[in-house]
């Protein structure tokens, strides 16, 4: 026991003590220098990195401007949609997470992976890359319950467009869909998964309706959980838009055209505002905004009736007899006819060796200007065409707005065609024939017009000659694009003739007669093919659908200072009056008598049957 107190006087090694003190000094200096380097020399850089860790910014989506009709009824609204995104920086294992997403949503993993790698350069750090823009509620519930176990997954709520009447207004409103590469390239403010207008007014008014996104800054913890939020920039909603269209009238016209292929334009003759713009067959705008499936797309694309086509502005047709008032106007303008002079119609006219027939086999007998229009006498117009020739007819028609776009605020409008000698030489490499003049005078041949051009011209007849730009929005100032080069007396003469066409017992538009309303009109038949004699002998019902003529009717109506022009075309509708007349009559009743009359079911069924036949060329009359 004694040895523990056994002391020696030896001192601890001196160099050892020095070593320990040196070690302390080294420790101090090493860390002091390092701390200076980290906290002072690079302090600002690290402070910025800490901020990047802590603070994130995210866009706040702005609701797209609402769309209403002229009476305030909502046509396009926004509803919340749930998008699934991936924040790369928070995600531990991208492939595994994508696999999980694919499993939950039924998407293909490779597709998601491709989408991910294609767009990864587009998202800013800590910004979610939108993989699935539209989750169903089932998917949302599943993902929301599990997403904390999958760091990086983020569900974003964003407004999605919803069209209350997707089928009724598809061609006017168009649709929005996810922005593509090109659009994102052009507009830097667009992010992946954003919706942009692709068609119709949604496309044309994109800048006005989109609004501007806001910006929110929030603090996140290491799990990406949001803590305090601060709004840096408030989002601005897109502008609301009111259409000049009348939803009720739109519904009515679409109903009358429902089983047909055709188009109707109803224009306020004193402003150019469109009250209805109907075209069938149609599609549902909502299908696009919620993401069209390849099957849906194929069906639309391959439909022989081209439902995507807006027949009022994008289809061109020979105008047939609805063109006769234009030619009549040209006759008056160039003074080649005396309105009171009569022409004897014997049912046909010879030009060289060719025979040009009047639609009425027996002829109309003595025909003056008014009777020629009222009874649509072809021979009268053949003679006028011969005198006018293409040069003057074309010049006059162009002054009336034919052969050029109306500049309606919708994309992909067609200009139609107003032929000239030069045009024919270039197009066919042959000169203008005398017979071409005759065909042109009755609206056949090379002349092609859109229903909207016809409506604008007829509006000019009723408003004293002004050609208004067709407008779709309320509050837009009327724009006069041109004037029909006729004096008021001459215009009045044409207008009276149109009214007689309705009022006269021999007029072709008797169907449109409406009590208390001054109605005028002109029917037309646009030949689809030159009917062979064999087909000519057939009854109407027996002619195969696709060989049947297009039915035109253009009308004017006025009451108590309200003046309207209507153009309607029904493809393969055979005769203007019976094919296109009923819808125009329904429009007049709606606008002036407040009567809503939909198409009778029996007629719909018949149209359906005819259409069915056309889609199935083997069978029926076609096989004979």
């Amino acid at each position: 026991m004694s040895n523990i107190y056994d002391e020696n006087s030896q001192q601890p090694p001196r160099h050892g003590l020095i070593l320990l003190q040196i070690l302390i000094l080294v420790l101090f200096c090493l860390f002091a220098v390092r701390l200076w380097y980290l906290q002072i020399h690079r302090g600002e850089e690290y402070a910025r990195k800490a901020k990047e860790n802590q603070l994130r910014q995210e866009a706040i989506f702005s609701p797209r401007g609402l769309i209403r009709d002229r009476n305030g009824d909502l046509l396009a609204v926004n509803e919340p949609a749930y998008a699934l995104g991936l924040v790369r920086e928070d995600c531990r294992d991208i492939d595994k997470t994508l696999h999980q997403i694919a499993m939950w949503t039924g998407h293909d993993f490779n597709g998601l992976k491709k989408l991910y790698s294609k767009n990864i350069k587009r998202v800013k750090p800590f910004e979610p890359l939108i993989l699935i823009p539209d989750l169903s509620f089932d998917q949302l519930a599943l993902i929301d319950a599990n997403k904390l176990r999958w760091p990086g997954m983020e569900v974003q709520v964003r407004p999605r467009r919803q069209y209350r009447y997707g089928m009724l207004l598809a061609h006017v409103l168009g649709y929005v869909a996810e922005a593509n590469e090109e659009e994102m390239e052009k507009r830097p403010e667009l992010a992946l998964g954003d919706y942009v207008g692709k068609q119709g007014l949604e496309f044309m008014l994109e800048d006005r309706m989109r609004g501007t996104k806001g910006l929110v800054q929030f603090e996140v913890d290491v799990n990406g959980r949001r803590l305090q939020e601060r709004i840096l920039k408030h989002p601005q909603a897109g502008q609301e838009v009111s259409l000049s269209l009348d939803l009720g009238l739109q519904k009515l016209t679409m109903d009358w055209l429902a089983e047909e292929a055709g188009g109707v334009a109803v224009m306020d003759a004193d402003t150019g505002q469109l009250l209805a713009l109907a075209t069938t067959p149609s599609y549902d705008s909502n299908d696009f905004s919620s993401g069209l499936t390849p099957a849906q797309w194929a069906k639309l694309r391959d439909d022989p009736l081209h439902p995507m086509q807006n027949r009022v502005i994008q289809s061109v047709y020979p105008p047939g007899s609805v063109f006769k008032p234009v030619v009549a106007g040209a006759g008056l303008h160039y003074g080649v006819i005396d309105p009171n002079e009569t022409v004897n119609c014997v049912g046909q006219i010879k030009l060289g060796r060719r025979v040009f027939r009047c639609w009425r086999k027996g002829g109309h007998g003595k025909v003056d200007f008014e009777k020629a229009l009222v009874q649509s006498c072809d021979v009268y117009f053949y003679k006028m065409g011969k005198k006018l020739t293409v040069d003057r007819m074309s010049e006059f028609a162009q002054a009336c707005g034919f052969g050029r776009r109306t500049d309606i605020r919708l994309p992909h409008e067609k200009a139609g065609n107003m032929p000239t000698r030069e045009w024919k030489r270039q197009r066919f490499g042959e000169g203008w024939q005398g017979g071409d003049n005759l065909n042109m005078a009755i609206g056949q041949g090379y002349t092609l017009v859109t229903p909207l051009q016809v409506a604008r011209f007829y509006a000019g007849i009723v408003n004293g000659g002004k050609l208004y730009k067709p407008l779709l929005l309320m509050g837009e100032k009327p724009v006069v694009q041109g004037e029909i080069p006729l004096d008021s007396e001459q215009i009045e003469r044409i207008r009276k003739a149109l009214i007689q066409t309705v009022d006269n017992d021999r007029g072709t538009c008797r169907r449109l007669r409406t009590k208390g309303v001054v109605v005028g009109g002109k029917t037309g038949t646009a030949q689809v093919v030159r009917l062979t004699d064999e087909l000519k002998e057939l009854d109407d019902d027996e002619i195969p659908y696709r060989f049947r003529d297009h039915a035109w009717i253009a009308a004017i109506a006025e009451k108590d200072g309200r003046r309207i022009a209507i153009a309607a075309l029904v493809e393969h509708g055979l005769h203007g009056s019976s094919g296109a007349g009923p819808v125009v009559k329904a429009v007049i009743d709606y606008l002036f008598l407040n009567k809503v009359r939909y198409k009778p079911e029996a007629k719909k069924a018949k149209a359906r049957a005819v259409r069915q036949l056309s889609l199935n060329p083997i069978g029926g009359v076609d096989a004979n």
Partner: protein
Amino acid sequence: MPIDRRLLLYINWPLLGLAVILFFFGVLNLYSASGYRMEVGMNVSSYYHRQLLWGLMGVFGMIIFMAFDFRHLKTMAWPLFWITVILLVGVIFAGKTIYGARRWLDLGFMNFQPSELAKIAILIVGARILSKEREPLDFIRLGYVLGVGMILAGLIIKQPDLGSGLSVLMILGGMILFRGVTPRVFKTALVAIPALLPVSWLFLHDYQKQRIMTFLDPTTDPLGAGYHIIQSEIAIGSGGFWGKGFLQGTQSQLRFLPERHTDFAVAVFGEEWGFVGIMLLLSLFCIFLYQIVMISRDARGLFGSYLAVGVFFYFFWQILINTGMVLGLMPVVGIPLPFISYGGSATLVNFCLVGLVLNVSMRRFLFKQG
């Protein structure tokens, strides 16, 4: 037994004071490190609370370690060594496995790490052996001393707990350096140790290799192993000169900083108190170490000196390695910072060892008794 008033008089009060101040700095920092922000307000875990309890137990341990004459440890050195060996072997057969390592003995009321005991044992046995050495160590004596250390270190590394095993060797190594070696041994070591380093690479686990690779270039794996280093440097660096203020450190409050109440606690301190605060902390640690050196110098007898040196290295290595790691100067190894990092048994041992050097200091003028 009447207490000799000189015993209290000769206590190194600065050392005791520094230990207590550092401990309270640690608790304060722990309060911040265990808080995290919620959507509304913040939440504080109870680590600081538990740390205070452990500190209280530590003070009791410290008093116990001061109460007896340290020279009794001379006779207890070898029995303590063998008890430690038995416990370490016991761990291998009956230890509790946590995180894939068998390091703990379940004592019923607490989990006990014999490796902590081994650090105390090596320092006492080392003091016992080295205080007898009159000359710098030659190969034979060095081999003997290292051999004793290797028994403990080997058993610990087998658990596996490389960190604690190396700690044992480094405490002993520091004491050997203090004693000094013959020039021949020194020159040989100068050549042999660098030569053996590549060989030791072969014995490392994959995760240990990974850590070293990550240390060399943290950016290779920013979300994995390099994450600790990157976030730690951001925390410290973003503190700047004045710091972000108590409870204001975003790296810790938003939990970007991992292990922020244990291994990376000092990063929280650096973030919230800045260059000023952490330099103060560093200075306190240095004065603390310097006081131990003074105790070693003034100790009565070489055994006491060596005990103090052992305690010096016990603290020195931990401060160097932990702070070095947090500052991105060393690979990530699980070694806590004394008084600052949360840890029950570590706090207990820290105070006990402070008690041990205080024991040496207070008995520096005592001569043979009885």
